[in-house]
């Protein structure tokens, strides 16, 4: 684990910690709700990958935008969607961030810069490049971020999106969360070159690989990439090597493609536990501080469940609204 040094103050360090724990607690709650049959459909948890969304989104302003994936709960929370709106959405409520239209895979809150999570792999890459094009055209100070997985790196959208972003110097950050499996297909089986970051050179943009379970490493790399984008010097590809410790989606059989030993080994690299050790060793927090933060966030999530549960169902008469602007 990286030593934090004093690049970040205690408040910033604890903000990173809070964000990761909020995502973890929320995901754990969603797992329980899924098991209890209170949410349905797909539920792709972000457990094990919290450091990536946290480290990147810490640099973003509300006016910056994020285009996310099917595994997008963490991005939504880190960009400012509240646990109340997120859990209500997965419960299909009118009070959800997409009014119950989207569920786990279609979270929207443009008011805070969440431009959508998506059920289509790779789509975030080109959409974020487009948002960046608009920012440049309209001279808006806005950074666009695409989160995507290793699976998307083998989709044509990656090639076309990175090429266009590079040739037009677009203010965009491409964050590949390489969790080693595209659904259940090992990246090593579908890519001869194991490095996603190395592909950046083919398009003429910088590619950086970092330990995606080290929130400070992600934070540092994203800092430079976001600065580059804001300065108008173009896009960056950031490959964050990480791992999901839950099945691809809740309720799915998690065997036949990876070993229990591998999962156990990655659980031992938990980004939250590793960061706790750093904070304690550095004196940035005491065990009591961290326990209090954990308890506060647990209370926030439990409140969010009550809020979601008590919210109204959406009105079926509204299902065709907003197809057209007028």
């Amino acid at each position, binding site marked *: 684990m990286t030593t934090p040094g004093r690049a970040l103050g205690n408040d910033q360090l604890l903000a990173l910690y809070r964000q990761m724990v909020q995502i973890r607690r929320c995901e754990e709650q969603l797992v329980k709700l899924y098991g209890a049959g209170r949410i349905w459909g797909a539920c792709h948890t972000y457990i094990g990958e919290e450091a990536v969304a946290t480290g990147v989104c810490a640099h973003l302003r509300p006016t910056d*935008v994020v*285009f996310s994936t099917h595994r997008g709960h963490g991005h939504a929370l880190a960009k400012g969607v509240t646990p109340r709106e997120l859990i209500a959405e997965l419960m299909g409520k009118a009070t959800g961030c*997409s*009014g119950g*239209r*989207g569920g786990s895979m*279609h979270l*929207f*809150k*443009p*008011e805070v810069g969440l*431009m*959508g999570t*998506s*059920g*289509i792999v790779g*789509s975030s890459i*080109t*959409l*974020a*490049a*487009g*948002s*960046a*094009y*608009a*920012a*440049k*055209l*309209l001279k*808006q100070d*806005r950074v*666009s971020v695409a989160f995507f997985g290793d699976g998307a790196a083998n989709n*044509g*959208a990656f*090639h*076309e*999106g990175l*090429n*266009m972003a590079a*040739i*037009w110097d677009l203010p965009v950050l491409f964050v590949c969360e390489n969790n080693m499996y595209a659904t259940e297909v090992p990246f090593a089986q579908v890519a001869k070159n194991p490095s996603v970051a190395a592909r950046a050179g083919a398009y003429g943009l910088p590619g950086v690989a970092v330990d995606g379970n080290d929130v400070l490493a992600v934070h540092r790399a994203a800092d430079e990439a976001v600065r580059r984008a804001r300065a108008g010097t173009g896009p960056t590809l950031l490959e964050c090597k990480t791992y999901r410790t839950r099945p691809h989606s809740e309720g799915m059989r998690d065997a036949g493609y990876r070993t229990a030993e591998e999962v156990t080994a990655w659980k031992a690299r938990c980004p939250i536990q590793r960061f706790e050790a750093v904070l304690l060793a550095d004196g940035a927090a005491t065990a009591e501080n961290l326990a209090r933060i954990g308890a506060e966030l647990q209370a926030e999530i439990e409140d969010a469940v009550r809020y979601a549960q008590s919210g109204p169902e959406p009105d079926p008469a509204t299902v*065709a*609204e*907003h*197809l*057209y*602007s*007028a």
Partner: protein
Amino acid sequence: MREMTFVEAAREGLAEEMARDPAVFVVGEGSGARGGNFNTTVGLYDLYGPERLRDTPISERGFTALCTGAAAAGARPVVDFMFIDFLTDAFGELFNQTAKLQWMSHGRLKMPIVLRGCFGAFGPFGAHHAGNYAPFFMHVPGFRVVVPSTPADAKGLLKTAIRCDDPVMFLEHKGLLHLKGPVPEGEHLVPFGQATVCREGTAATVVGIGLMVRRALEAAEQLAADGLAVEVVDPRTLAPLDLPTILASVHKTGRLLIVDDDFAPCGVAAEVATQVMEQAFDDLDAPPRRLNGVFAPAPYSPALMEGMVPGVAAIAEAVRTLCAE
């Protein structure tokens, strides 16, 4: 009124909208300094430069999605596919992102994007440069589908399309590009969902699409000499479709022929016929009839092209047959 070609009129509409709104930009292969394969952007690069007249790599899927993201973020892109066939590489983006983002975001994102291109089995272009994809986009919730048939409508509908906050398929028939006609100067906006009755008559209603409107008018001229007064209706926009104007015409004539050079199955003509039968069955004195292109890819040889799409004689014959029923 001054006369212009269809291409010149559409270009004037585009130029006016680019002057009016700095958020409008065009992407396409050769849309920059070259001015577009079909001269859709001639002269505009010199005025607006590469950021607003953007030459792209051959990445139809990529630049369609890029423009979708740009539209969601406040720009107003015009994607010039040149030949509309090339948008087939972007179907996934169009159907899953462009069409759905407004709905998925509960109306909080807008999607002001124009997707334009030349269509139709016309000339010796062969199977990959002759498609007509209007029904695909009528079928998917979220799109507007526009098919002008005159220079004035090309200008007025393109201006409306660029100001529209929804995705608009703007389909330009290759057989109309050099058609000349009167075009109003300045602010000429044609609203969506308003058909025009191009020629009045009482014997039968002919609904034409794109180039077929012009051919139906020629057929109507011939039929008038035989004493058959044919009414010709141009829907101008297929989504939204101005059904009331078509129904009013059918109420008057009692007979309906839809002429569409695209394929028949699940096509525009099938949709129009069904809606008319659902709404005005009792007005019909004969079954609605369709006249479509041959259900096969477009060939190269002029000999093979003969009869691929409805010509004036075939339309006149179909009307005579319909009126005899």
